[in-house]
């Protein structure tokens, strides 16, 4: 098998790198062993620090906070905001509807209520969540109607209401009001409880029409003049437009709350990314990269195990976008390693490869743990560095979570790093060595 560029990993960064290389005219193949962190995520994306800076919380002001943390890959990437913007524009162009958003210096943070009772700060989300952005109400007031379904006992908006209100007010929406309504999702009342949101999403998928459901919701909230109607995070998986359709049927802006565990939003995002690859003609190989050959400082072959068979792929350049532990880009087996290329695993300029996890954790759960912040080091062209801090191979690039220096959650910049690094890595991989 031959290609111009081979991408290892099919999450957000892998797809962005593939699209960037594709736009440069390269023939791209993408090797993926399974869905990873993107598909398991909650469908939101964070580009910069998510702390409330007390100001306008614009992307620029939050990038300035991020810039103070020298460990973040943003210190390696030249003008990260620019690459991020370009990457996002390109990605949004490939994703079908609803992803339009001006990503610019003064783009305010998105504020979406989460299923866990928090006000999530992010920079982008799947359309179903994005339409519930409360940022436009900052300095003003808002009335929110939240629907709970009887078949979803684990979604407890009545209980979350006070937590939401506390956060909303702290974010500067003083006159906020939330009213919770409960009704059965299905009117026959026969269905047992759903065990997870994806089960409920499949029932939405299977509905002939959403009219009856919308009508019951409208009847339920009749008399309450809400600005926004929030639904549980389960409004269809195959059926993409359920939230939009219900919104039109009821005549109110509608959104899903951002889901936590086993939410469907991450799967939706992954599906859209997969479609973007297909449309662009990037071939997806369902397999695992297991080995490589290196000659004169260049990777010549990548060995891929797929369906019990092993094949070599020869390409001009390779992009490692395998993520961290969920994706398998990093591994712990009584010692931490980057299993494919044997790259050093770095934290704060120290090679920690070979150390077991027990040495890399803190006692405080919510602290930043080395093991959840480490990764490989790259140069500004996104080429991984070896132990001597030299380029591992001239035609090898890396992007996304596998680059270390930040906590995927606490630093709030994971998708921003993914976009910027993937865009640079993909473009460089297609552009030939320098």
């Amino acid at each position, binding site marked *: 098998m031959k290609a111009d560029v081979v991408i290892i990993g099919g999450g957000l960064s892998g797809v962005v790198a593939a699209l960037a290389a594709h736009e440069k005219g390269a023939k791209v193949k993408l090797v993926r062993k399974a869905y990873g*962190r993107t598909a*398991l*995520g*909650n469908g939101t994306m964070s580009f910069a620090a998510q*702390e409330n800076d007390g100001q306008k919380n614009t992307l620029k002001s939050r990038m300035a906070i991020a810039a103070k943390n020298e460990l973040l890959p943003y210190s390696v990437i030249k003008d990260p905001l620019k690459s991020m913007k370009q990457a996002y524009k390109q990605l949004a162009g490939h994703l079908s509807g609803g992803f339009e958003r001006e990503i610019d210096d003064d783009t305010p943070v998105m504020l979406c209520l*989460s*299923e*866990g*009772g*928090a006000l*999530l700060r992010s920079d982008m989300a799947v359309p179903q969540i994005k339409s519930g952005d409360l940022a436009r109400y900052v300095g003003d007031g808002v009335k929110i109607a939240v629907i709970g379904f*009887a078949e979803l*006992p*684990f979604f*407890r908006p009545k*209980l979350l209401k*006070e*937590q939401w*209100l*506390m956060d909303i007010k702290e974010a500067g929406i003083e006159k906020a009001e939330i009213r919770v309504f409960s009704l059965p999702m299905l009117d026959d009342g026969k269905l047992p*409880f759903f*065990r997870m949101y994806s089960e409920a999403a499949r029932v939405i998928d299977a509905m002939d029409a959403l009219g009856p459901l919308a009508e019951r919701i409208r009847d339920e909230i009749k008399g309450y003049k809400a600005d926004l109607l929030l639904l549980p995070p389960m409004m269809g998986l195959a059926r993409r437009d359920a939230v939009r359709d219900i919104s039109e049927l009821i005549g109110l802006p509608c959104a899903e709350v*951002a*889901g*936590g*565990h*086993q*939410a469907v939003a991450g799967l939706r995002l992954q599906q859209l990314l997969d479609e973007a690859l297909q449309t662009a003609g990037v071939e997806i190989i369902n397999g695992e990269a297991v080995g490589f050959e290196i000659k004169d400082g260049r990777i010549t072959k990548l060995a891929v195990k797929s369906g019990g068979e092993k094949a070599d792929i020869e390409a001009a350049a390779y992009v490692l976008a395998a993520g*961290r*532990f*969920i994706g*398998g880009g990093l591994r*712990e*087996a*009584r010692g931490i390693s980057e299993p494919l290329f044997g790259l050093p695993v770095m934290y704060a300029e120290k090679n920690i490869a070979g150390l*077991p*996890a*027990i*040495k890399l*954790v*803190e*006692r*405080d*759960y*919510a602290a930043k743990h080395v*093991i*959840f912040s480490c990764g490989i080091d790259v140069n500004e062209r996104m080429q991984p560095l070896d132990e001597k801090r030299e380029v591992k191979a001239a035609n090898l690039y890396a992007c996304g979570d596998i680059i270390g220096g930040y906590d*995927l*959650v*606490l630093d709030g910049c994971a998708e921003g790093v993914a976009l910027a690094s993937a865009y640079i890595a993909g473009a460089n991989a297609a552009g030939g060595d320098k």
Partner: protein
Amino acid sequence: MKEFDLLVVGGGVNGCGIARDAAKRGLKVMLVEKGDISAGTTWGSSGMIHGGVRYLFSDVGVTKLSCIDSGYIQKIAPHMIFRIPFIFVLPNDNNWVFRFIIYEGASAVFETYDNFAKFKGGKPACRLTPAEVKKLEPLIRDDIHGGITMDEWGIDCPRLCLANAKDAEVNGAEVRTHTRLTGFIKDGNRIIGAELQDEVTGEVEKVKARITFNATGPWVPGMAAMAGCEVKLRPAKGVHLVLDRRLTDYGVLCTAVDGRQMFVMPHENVSYIGTTDDDYYGDPGDIPVLEDEIAYLLQAAESYIPDVSKARVIKVLRAVRPTLFETGKYEDDLTREHQIFDHEERDGIAGFLTMGGGKLASYRVMSEEAVDLVMLKLGKVNPCRSHLDPLPGGDVTPSAEDVAAQFGIDPYAASRVIYRHGSWAAKVLESIKTIPGDAYMVDRYEPTLAAEIRYCVRNEWVKRPSDLTRRCRVGEGADQGMASIQQATQIFAEENKLGPRETIEAADHFLQAKWYERHEALSGEGVAQEELSRMINLGCWRTAQRSHIERRLP
């Protein structure tokens, strides 16, 4: 000031056992526990009411006592008991003479042990050929000399403690959890009461008691010092690794690299590898687990069951045994005997008694002895009935099919509720009739239903949601509560009408309590699991991340 006949300090199996026995004999009892019921040494035990074959030659008395009492426990709490047959496996290492001696020797031990089996309803030991061993447990390594079976019983220890505490309450006792004894009230050389502080609310309360019983396990020396006397222990740290699945149906006895006896055994829906036994003089409430200890246990387990390496260590149970003080002996050879210290005779401090040593399997008989002494001191006579009357829920064990049909729940979930609550199962599930959503499975690994969580919060002194992990095993499964901690906390918050900040703080505390138990065990695929768990619990719920919450270690 409230007045009691007996103030029991310590909510482990001994404290709960003493409180129950004393309350049943008509004493006015208060039980105080600084953390949660069974959260100390009891929580770190192997969960076995075994007869102590290990002590057969060093302490035959301990073995006999344990076996007899094991029989009683089976009668008073039949619902929470399960059989664990063990296989002693002899590998084909070393030469045949050595193997012959070890095998015959072990055989003789187990056959001697059979003499006590009648007391605890055990089946006699049985010699197995290598083929028979492999047939029973295909995961056991090849190349073995043979095996010998031994019959033991397992138990849900936190539930055993809880049932004792509950029975004490039923018989009029007051139970205070998360309440620390901060000082004694003295009248000359007599202890006449104590000052208590609620660890959650900070409230202070003074109570009077004619006798104060120090049943604080490894905290015994500290408590005794507070009363003005010295009790020496030789505390020993014991560590168990918990694997994410049941690897075997039988317990497998192995010999570690240093010749010590160890085991890999199924427990509930996980497996335990245990145990270590090392001198420990640190804080019994904050026990670090070392890399070496984990490696030592895994090495031994893997050399008998290679597939142990494919399972995931999800947490490390750690506890300190309050073994009696002796010098010049190895930790393993220390006696498991118990001793009751009468400080009036010993140190001239009246109204204060202490229990040291002992083991889970004989908690009941030790409690009986303790209460006998208390009765004598108080000049009261009333015979012990703790071995005759069933514990709460232990009278009849309902059928899982019936309970499942009655409440429209999964029969397996029903069987777990029955396992923990016995005949009280219907009472536990009652809320399903008024709150249909309570039939929802909050923790799918156990499984634990919302109804059981609600019942525990209402009736079983759940003052912090992390207590639920001992009540109904929330967060004890393979995902260590990734998906259930927040759900369980929500039910806790709903029942206690907590405000938003308190709810977040409660969830935060639960997450931290679980992390304390597993952070040293993080390895292999577990790191990916943890990455996912953090995305959910810190990313979406974002509880611990909120800056206005002051984080505290448990």
